[in-house]
């Protein structure tokens, strides 16, 4: 993990989300599924954000402004500097055959970078509305479903054991995916104060015990998480 003050190169709306681009400088982009802690201007604690895109010299994050921290991040301006720490946690295992990416809502965030790393495998994305679905444009080769339709329906047909699923999304979706595909790799969320194992705030039940998601995850094998 490395800490830096990174220059903000720009922000752009993607449906209801904001794509935040920073200068990469000496920071490693890390493995898809890893995350950075981003300073949330005016707030006490940084916020965990997955690497969304890593073009040369840049890092980009896709932000869903749902509360004080993410609203502050979505409001930063080009030229400002932001304290960033990362890459953190464990990303997806990329050493797999015929991957299928599955995302729900803001869970799409890590998939563009993941898709690039895997040579643009097929992806299945679910969103709450057409507007949210605009984020699908960040992911190559994606099939999109919008509520009331859920990703788990097409998933049943598609993903028998023909392919390995890598997913990120809200809890309900991840649990449904885990049911259909026990071998899936799932990226989870938890409130995080530090992101590097210091606070024990991000505890989640893994293999039957409370463990730190920032240390053990955020990507976990589906079996690891209690049903």
């Amino acid at each position, binding site marked *: 993990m490395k800490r830096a003050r990174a220059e903000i190169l720009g922000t752009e709306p993607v449906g209801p989300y904001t794509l935040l681009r920073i200068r990469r400088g000496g920071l490693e982009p890390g493995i898809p599924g890893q995350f950075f802690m981003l300073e949330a201007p005016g707030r006490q604690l940084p916020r965990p954000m997955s690497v969304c895109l890593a073009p040369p010299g840049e890092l980009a994050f896709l932000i869903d402004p749902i509360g004080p921290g993410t609203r502050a991040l979505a409001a930063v301006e080009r030229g400002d500097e932001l304290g960033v720490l990362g890459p953190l946690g464990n990303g997806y295992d990329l050493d797999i055959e015929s991957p299928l990416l599955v995302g729900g809502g803001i869970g799409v965030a890590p998939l563009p970078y993941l898709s690039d790393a895997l040579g643009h495998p097929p992806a299945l994305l679910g969103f709450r509305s057409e507007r949210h679905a605009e984020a699908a444009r960040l992911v190559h080769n994606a099939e999109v479903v919008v509520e009331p339709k859920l990703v788990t329906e097409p998933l049943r047909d598609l993903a028998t054991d023909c392919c390995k699923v890598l997913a990120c999304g809200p809890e309900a979706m991840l649990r449904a995916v885990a049911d259909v595909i026990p071998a899936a790799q799932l990226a989870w969320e938890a409130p995080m104060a530090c992101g590097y194992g*210091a606070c024990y705030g991000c505890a989640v039940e893994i293999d039957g015990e409370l463990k730190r998601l920032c240390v053990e995850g955020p990507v976990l094998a589906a079996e690891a998480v209690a049903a």
Partner: protein
Amino acid sequence: MRLLNASGCLDALAAPDVARSLDVFVTKTVTPLPREGNAPVRIAEVDHGMLNSIGLANPGIDNFLSHSLPRLGELGVPIWVSVGGFAASDYADLCDRLDDCQEVAAIELNVSCPNVDDVPASVGGIVGAARAATRKPIYTKLSPATADVAAAARAARDAGTDGLSLVNTILGLALDERTLRPTLSRGRGGLSGPALKPIALAAVYACYEATGLPIVGMGGITSGRDALEFVAAGASDVALGTILFSDPGASTRISRELQAELAAVPVDSPDNAIGLAHAAPTFAEGVARRDTSLPV
């Protein structure tokens, strides 16, 4: 003056470089038995600080001694072990187990965790039992949530503590932005960060006056100026907690800032600033440049 981490705010094994940037590493509180801690959600941000209800998640003394301590010993940083229990005998047993460990430089008695239901016995009783069980230096960590923190400090001194760690968190509440229900599953949690600073500073000031014991000051320290104020109030060492979450490099930055602050006071070394807030007015007036016009 040494720079420590506040107990529970750094895992030296997860972030060894951060631990090595400190003069002393203090462990998260270790209890007799392993504890998973409280159910999530167990942290929440508030406007000027944060709440936690971790609930002393720790591997228990056995695993700590067999697995953690040997690896901590290899860090090359003096190790203080924070211990917590629910009866004076727990503290005695824990101190007894640690007494022979040469990796352990000192023991911090956490008699002030707001996140466990069973409130430990009287401070004096706990410190006395611990004192009888170990020759290691003992620092007793007190809560600011009392009408008279100096009384607790005196009790700890009379029972044989070598120093005080001031302060632990104080219970606070945060409500979810949309549901208006407590953000933490446990409801209330310990308040830390800048909002705690004036309260912590007052505790250090009162306990220094009451006991003259060495004090590790902590509570909302985010800058060299904050560190200097704790030292002036009576702290001989200071600890960083919440600030480490947003700035793992805080210790280096704060030492640098502290040097600049000292030059302005002017005092040549932090140790010469200890208790400055208690200095005779004459001295302080000497430091002050311009007379204000208060007609009193």
